[in-house]
């Protein structure tokens, strides 16, 4: 892995060098005003540190902004409320047992190769996804999404019926993700390599025309497009003529590219560069990754985290306000529960997460954890020693603050930097007491990835968290929206009260766009949409 550390060292070095050089140069460009009416035309240059290795949105989610511009989905998630709204399906009905969904499809929609969008295409896409691993011997995102799917049947050209193996309250939310974007049946027969390198034919506002590996990907406006998501601000073809996604591995080079007007948009610029960018009129869009916030999880398979008192003390022994101020920037909101506010069913539990070191110390005293001369508590000869695993570089300062805060309470915390692969390989066992993970998905089913008994990243089993597992199963099969929300509220309370997880921070993604670019939007799932984007003359 020498190259990797080498590239990190280079990244650190380049950031310093270019920042210094920039500071030496005379001031940047002045901000210019937004155009009054949307400008049509132009090619938007978007810098990414790596381009996706696979452009088929049903196969790969990772970094796949280009592929996601080419497809639409049956339903969408409302940008403000998170509720499910119609898109390519104009309406739908759900059977009382929650097993059958009947969708009515929108008229007049076509794929970019002219094929009509029909019920047969919806069925073909679903069947392709569930049979994908067996057909190609490769995993696919859509296949992983559709674990509850049984079959679908074409009622007529405009009506498709989908049957599930078990009720899945988050099924519609899954369908709103671009991973479930509708693909033309003729694209589904291609080889894995073709689907990845050329992308697929969709009904979306852009089509892929060029893919030069590790260099650039070009998508162009699709003529005649007229069926955007209800989250959009206009109704016909995309404003831009084309988008050129270019690979620029070094963050500081991306920043200079944007300042020198060689680049129009950067996805996730280096946090340190944001003030410099803002000072020159660059617009920063942010997106709070909705789902389970970045949290610390206890290892319930061994002491000391099996002791409820230790977990209770930890929950209020973390000063989340200090962490927000010390480790994150002004765009980051305070974490307030075991879910983020954008997830339907979220409840505000900030009062239960309030920092209270005195009470935390009392809880530990009462449970028999006595403060030792070395500043570390002990009980029955066992020191309060904790191994804390973490992997995600941007949370480093937060991790160090947690270590310092808990040290005051008498915890001896040993930090262990690992990789996500190591965590997955170690699994539920392994030499750790606390672990930090957290990835977005704007539905309460995101709980499963972290709190579920099948999670690769935490220690939960059907035995050590029976109450939690029962509630998780209950919410996913509740088709009554109000009842499900109530259960999701119970789950958040249980997690916070019993210390099943210690929410720490909300992950924020950034987009930086040049002053003459407008309408660069994060969609609900955290990816960028360029359908409403305009670029005026420089």
């Amino acid at each position: 892995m020498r190259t990797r550390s080498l590239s990190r060292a280079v990244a650190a070095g380049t950031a310093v060098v270019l920042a210094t050089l920039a500071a030496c140069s005379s001031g940047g460009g002045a901000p210019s005003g937004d155009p009054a009416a949307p400008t049509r035309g132009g090619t938007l240059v978007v810098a990414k540190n790596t381009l996706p290795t696979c452009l088929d949105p049903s196969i790969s989610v990772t970094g796949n902004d280009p592929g996601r511009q080419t497809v639409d989905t049956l339903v969408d998630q409302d940008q403000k409320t998170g509720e499910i709204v119609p898109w390519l399906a104009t309406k739908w009905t759900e059977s009382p047992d929650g097993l059958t969904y009947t969708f009515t499809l929108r008229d007049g929609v076509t794929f970019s190769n002219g094929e009509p969008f029909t019920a047969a295409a919806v069925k073909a896409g679903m069947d392709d996804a569930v049979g994908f691993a067996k057909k190609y011997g490769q995993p696919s995102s859509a296949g992983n999404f559709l674990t509850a799917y049984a079959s679908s049947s074409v009622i007529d050209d405009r009506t498709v019926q989908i049957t599930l193996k078990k009720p899945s309250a988050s099924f519609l939310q899954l369908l709103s993700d671009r991973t479930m974007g509708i693909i033309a049946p003729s694209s589904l027969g291609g080889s894995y390599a073709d689907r990845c390198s050329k992308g697929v034919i969709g009904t979306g506002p852009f089509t892929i025309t060029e893919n030069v590996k590790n260099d650039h990907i070009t998508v162009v406006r699709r003529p005649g497009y007229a069926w955007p998501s209800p989250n959009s601000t206009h109704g016909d073809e995309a404003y831009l003529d084309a988008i050129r996604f270019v690979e620029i591995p070094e963050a500081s080079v991306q920043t200079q590219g944007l300042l020198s007007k060689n680049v129009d948009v950067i996805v996730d610029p280096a946090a340190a560069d944001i003030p410099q960018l803002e000072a020159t009129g660059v617009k920063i869009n942010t997106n709070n990754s909705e789902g389970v916030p970045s949290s610390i999880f206890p290892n319930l398979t061994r002491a000391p985290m099996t002791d409820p008192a230790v977990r209770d003390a930890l929950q209020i022994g973390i000063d989340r306000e200090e962490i927000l101020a010390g480790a994150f920037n002004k765009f980051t909101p305070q974490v307030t529960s075991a879910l983020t506010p954008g997830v339907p069913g979220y409840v505000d539990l900030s009062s239960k997460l309030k920092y209270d070191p005195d009470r935390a110390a009392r809880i530990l005293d009462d449970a028999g954890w006595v403060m030792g001369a070395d500043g570390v508590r002990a009980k029955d000869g066992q020191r309060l020693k904790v191994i804390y695993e973490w992997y995600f570089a941007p949370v480093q300062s937060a991790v160090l603050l947690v270590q310092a805060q808990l040290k005051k309470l008498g915890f001896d915390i040993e930090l262990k930097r690992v990789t996500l692969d190591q965590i997955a390989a170690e699994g539920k066992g392994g030499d750790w007491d606390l672990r930090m993970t957290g990835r977005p998905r704007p539905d309460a089913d995101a709980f499963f990835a972290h709190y579920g008994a099948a999670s690769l990243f935490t220690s939960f089993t059907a035995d050590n968290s029976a109450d939690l597992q029962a509630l998780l199963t209950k919410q996913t099969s509740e088709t009554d929206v109000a009842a499900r929300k109530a259960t999701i509220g119970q789950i958040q309370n249980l997690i916070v009260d019993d210390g099943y997880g210690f929410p720490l921070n909300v992950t924020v993604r950034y987009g930086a766009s040049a002053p003459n670019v407008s309408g660069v939007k994060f969609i609900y799932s955290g990816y960028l949409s360029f359908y409403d984007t305009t670029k005026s003359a420089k």
Partner: protein
Amino acid sequence: MVRYVAGRLGHALIVVWAAYTVSFLLLYALPADPVSTMLSAGAVDGSTVSDADRAAIVARFGFDQPLIVQYLRMLGHLLTGDLGTSIQTGSTVTTAIGAALPSTLQLAALAIVIGALVGILVAFTANVVRSSVLRDVIFSVPPFLSAIPNFLIGLLLMWVFAFQLGVLPFRGSDGFEALILPGLTLGLSLSARVGQVLGRDIQRELRTPYVDVLKVKSLSRPKIVMTHVFKNAGLPVLSVVGVMIGGLIAGTVITETIFARPGIGRLLQLSVETQDFPVVQAIVVLSATTYAVVNLAADLVIPVVDPRLRRPGRARTKVE
């Protein structure tokens, strides 16, 4: 001579095999296989994969087999020229390398030309200028260049020529213009070693008796260096250039990353990050083969160029 060549050839083959085997062991000693990595990346997003699907995927890549079986199978494929399939893209490794190689070859060719020219120029001028101050200044150029990290040279060049003057592209691989800055970045680093070795050797040669004879014949210093000294002093440079070419792929990792060139170095870096084993293995073999071939060529050419090394018994002495 035949025995000599056969011996060198066998040596080269052992180098390539050893590089392949060591890299295989290193890659497979990592805690997680690439398939688990792919599957866990999906699982973090809240999705899951069924056990049957997982087994089908793992079996397809052969990660369920014992290590020795995986090794022998891959070695067998390699011997038949089959480099395998990229785990990330599903394309053949040959396609991926074929797409990246031209860009890297252009970069390497320009870098070697720049490295040799600048290196020779520095060594030559340092030895012919009369002012001892100026000579010291010129002699300090190669150590200075080799002390500056490669990426710093690249960023300085990019800053001046792309962002300030706007005369050259700061990224990409479109045309010769985009090649200039990366070529200079890599070339200047290479020139440091050529300049150092050649400069020192010319200096040493100038102190030998035959140069005194030439001076007595009232030949000018530049002429002595150019026509007589250079021929003798230049030989070690051949070996240095040989080693340099072998190590070029490592050098291109940084240069290609800074200038966003889709070459072999960048491909290697990304493949290591995504644990795309077949691609990493293929690049290691390519790199080791280049190294072995260039050194073999140097070993064979140097005795031809230098008659002193052609005597029996001395033929195996490699000039460093």
